[in-house]
């Protein structure tokens, strides 16, 4: 198995930590994983993205230049990255913040109104995890159990009280896929 996942959005949307959660889960399952952020003065512009590779074989370059899965949390990221996705790949679009449709038709595109759904759950902060739940359900790249275990490790202790909410968000995302929604 091999998945190269690119997660992109504004700084502050939790893009980097979502990627780390995913990588951690991969490690928990004994897979080869690598996580890498974009770095540098672009951070000034307020965008952030990271690549997560999860594979059954050692990982060559950790830089995700041709994602098998793309998660975009804002419009500039969709515009910038959609063409890099491999044919047959997947794009998750946070349709709460992006009023644009993806232009690719050789990939699967899921529109998830993640912010609205997260607000419904009680906190906009778990928008990422809704999409992550969908991703996991769809690709099976890691198991939900591994993610649950990883949450314990990745979140600092004083945030452990948010774990149930995060799990709910992951489950909500998974359901979306199970129900075949393509908003």
């Amino acid at each position, binding site marked *: 198995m091999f998945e190269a996942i690119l997660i992109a959005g*504004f700084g502050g949307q939790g893009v980097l930590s979502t990627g780390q959660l995913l990588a951690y889960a991969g490690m928990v399952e004994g897979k080869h994983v690598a996580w890498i952020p974009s770095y540098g003065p672009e951070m000034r512009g*307020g965008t952030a993205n990271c690549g997560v590779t999860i594979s059954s074989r050692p990982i060559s370059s950790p830089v995700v230049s041709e994602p098998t899965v793309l998660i975009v949390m*804002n*419009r*500039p990221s969709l515009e910038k990255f959609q063409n890099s996705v491999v044919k047959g790949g997947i794009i998750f679009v946070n349709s709460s*913040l992006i009023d644009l449709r993806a232009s690719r038709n050789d990939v699967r595109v899921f529109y998830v109104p993640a912010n609205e759904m997260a607000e419904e759950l009680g906190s906009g902060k778990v928008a990422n995890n809704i999409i992550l739940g969908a991703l996991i359900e769809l690709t099976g790249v890691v198991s939900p159990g591994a993610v649950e275990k990883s949450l314990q490790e990745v979140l600092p202790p004083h945030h452990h009280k948010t774990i149930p909410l995060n799990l709910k968000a992951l489950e909500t995302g998974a359901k979306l896929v199970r129900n075949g929604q393509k908003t």
Partner: protein
Amino acid sequence: MPRVTFREERCKGCELCKHFCPKGIIEMAGHINAMGFHPATVVDAESCTGCATCARMCPDIVIEVEKEEKKVG
């Protein structure tokens, strides 16, 4: 009547203009611009004195201020 114009696409939603406007007539819009920020906007253009305080505090030179021509000196 003075006129303040905002180059909305350049606004980063920092709220400095809003804070320093002596008339308190600047608010942040509900929508976000292409950069992902809630842009500033004047909600009560009538009350604007054209003092340009907002413009002078805007780090991104979003704001332009025009005023009736007055003969000065």
